[in-house]
């Protein structure tokens, strides 16, 4: 173990009891730390049909790997499959990556702080695997790399620590499906660190498909260098007991760009506190945060934060919330911080129910009330997603359509 690693462990130890800044506090002792190890499978098509079904719902295709440029699957604490289908793309478990790349420690706890809260500390203090995805300089993936995190063991704290690197001028599209058996209970702790080098681009699409008794605390950070692009798409439409996350992207190179698009639904019994933060630390860097939030009875806190720290940065935040049904709360908290002159930051937020005027307008064309409502809600959930391969765009649309039927 290197000195750096020992140092991090020490810092983590001090933060082991540190509550998170946001979200209900979780008693980690309520959940099991370890689960049985799972065997490695060369062909993920051989996973159980039940597991494959849930993974597919989260956008993970296992029967035809040629539709992806790489695949990673972790069940509970064990990576059970990883493979790359394209030259110049590396997909492996973090434990494998540490053996392969001696330089990896410099990316470890660099975009996310080890002592951010007790959850990050917990990951450092316990043996944690996860995925490592990297595109070599100039390599562009035609098809997305897929990663699946599956929580199967009852009442487990699933630990994941991921590193994603897009080297200079490369382009990487990733779809991550996080899912579980619909009846299971558990806690998912996941750290993801993204490094987008000069002129590189990452699109990261995460589809959450949790269950009513699952708690989720992802901790994500990204560092975007000069002219790099990070597109973060997030879809969560299934029930979850509590979920809190606030992914933070730092633009450190001139002209770096980040865009967050989120589609969030809080069904009854769900408590979701979800934000997106962009820190514009370099000239001409840009951020856009767009979210669509619906409650059908749950509580949804939709946060957004753009910080402009250098001249000529630009940021826009748009949060729209829809309350369907009689109960449910949407709390939109858009924040802008400007620290220098010559910046351009703006936000718009709107929360309400479906406009009766719009429903009646469609009804005047012969649509029944529920048809008109469905059409408006579908329209509401349609966020413009740029820069994705058609396959991924279709995947997002499918994930949204799949969950839409539960809304009415």
């Amino acid at each position, binding site marked *: 173990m290197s000195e750096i690693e020992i140092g991090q462990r020490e810092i983590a130890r001090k933060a082991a009891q540190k509550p998170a800044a946001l979200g209900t506090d979780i008693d980690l002792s309520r959940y099991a730390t370890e689960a049985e190890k799972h065997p490695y499978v060369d062909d993920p098509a051989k996973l159980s049909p039940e597991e494959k079904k849930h993974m597919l719902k989260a956008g993970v295709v296992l029967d035809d790997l040629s539709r992806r440029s790489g695949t990673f699957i972790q069940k509970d604490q064990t990576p059970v499959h990883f493979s790359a289908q394209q030259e110049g793309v590396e997909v492996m478990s973090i434990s494998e990556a540490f053996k392969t790349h001696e330089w990896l420690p410099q990316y470890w706890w660099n975009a996310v702080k080890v002592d951010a809260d007790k959850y990050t500390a917990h990951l450092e203090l316990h043996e944690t695997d996860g995925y490592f995805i990297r595109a070599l300089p100039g390599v562009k993936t035609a098809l997305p790399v897929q990663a699946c995190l599956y929580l199967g063991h009852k009442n487990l704290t699933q630990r994941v620590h991921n590193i994603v690197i897009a080297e200079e001028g490369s382009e990487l599209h990733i779809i991550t499906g996080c899912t579980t058996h619909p009846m299971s209970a558990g806690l998912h702790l996941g750290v993801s660190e993204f490094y987008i080098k000069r002129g590189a681009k990452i699109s990261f699409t995460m589809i959450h498909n949790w269950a009513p008794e699952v708690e989720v605390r992802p901790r994500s950070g990204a560092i975007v260098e000069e002219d790099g692009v990070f597109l973060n798409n997030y879809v969560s439409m299934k029930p979850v007991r509590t979920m809190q996350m606030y992914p933070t992207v730092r633009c450190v190179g001139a002209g770096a760009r980040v865009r967050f698009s989120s589609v969030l639904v809080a069904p009854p019994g769900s408590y979701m506190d979800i934000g997106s933060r962009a820190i514009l630390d370099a000239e001409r860097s840009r951020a856009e945060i767009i979210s669509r939030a619906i409650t059908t009875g749950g509580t949804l806190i939709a946060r957004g934060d753009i910080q402009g720290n250098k001249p000529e940065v630009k940021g826009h935040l748009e949060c729209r919330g829809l309350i369907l049904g009689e109960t449910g709360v949407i709390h939109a908290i858009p924040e802008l911080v400007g620290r220098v002159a010559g910046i351009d930051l703006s936000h718009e937020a709107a929360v309400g129910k479906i406009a009766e005027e719009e429903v*009646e*307008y*469609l*009804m*005047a*064309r*012969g649509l029944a009330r529920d048809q008109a409502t469905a*059409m*408006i809600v579908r*329209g509401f959930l349609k966020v413009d997603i740029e820069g994705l391969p058609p396959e991924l765009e279709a995947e997002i649309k499918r994930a949204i359509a799949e969950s839409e039927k539960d809304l009415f």
Partner: protein
Amino acid sequence: MLKIENLAVEVGGKEILHDVNLHIGPGETQALFGPNGSGKTTLLMAIMGFPKYRITRGRIIFKGQDITRTPLNERARMGIGMSFQRPPIVRGVRTRDLVVAAAGGRFDDRAIDNMARRLNVMDLMDRDVNLGFSGGEIKRSELMQLLVQGPDLVLLDEPESGVDLVNMALIGQMTNELLQKDLHRTRTRSGLIITHTGHILDYVHAGKGYVMIDGRVISDGESMEILKCIKEKGFEECRTCRR
């Protein structure tokens, strides 16, 4: 086609229309004149069946059936269609999706595209409904929806407002098509057109016309005669326009 008897309509607890009577036969198009705020749009909204426009007295008979209490979308399905003066923006819903829904399977994609080309709305079809549409674009989009809906009774709320001269001819031509003006004895579709300026009547022939002031129909007669009279004497003097 449409018979309105002693109709009174309330909006927000206030009576706007008082004892309105109107009769439109099959194949007939009629015009409704009146100053701003006289209740013309209220009458169209009440015929269409918007719940906010509460009918407190009288009856609406459509194709022989009493529809006074019939819900909005059922009236649409029975064959009443309306073009709105200021329709709402529906974000995220493409105009094409609404057109297809309004067509209800009566036209296939090719027929819809053909119609859209003729109405010059092709570039609106993939945009959100009414979002950022100009006055003229709204009129053409409304007309497009009505054409696929194919209603037997067409209610038009100021189809000419905000439309330039070139597009006026197009809207006139397509409105005639909507109202089957090329057919004569076999024409079944009827229309009721609200107009401020009367420009639409240069293109679309209307028989009878009414003048509405303060929620009452104060006179009726030949549309062009009434229009001439309004232009000469103004609305207030129109009581004398009655023939």
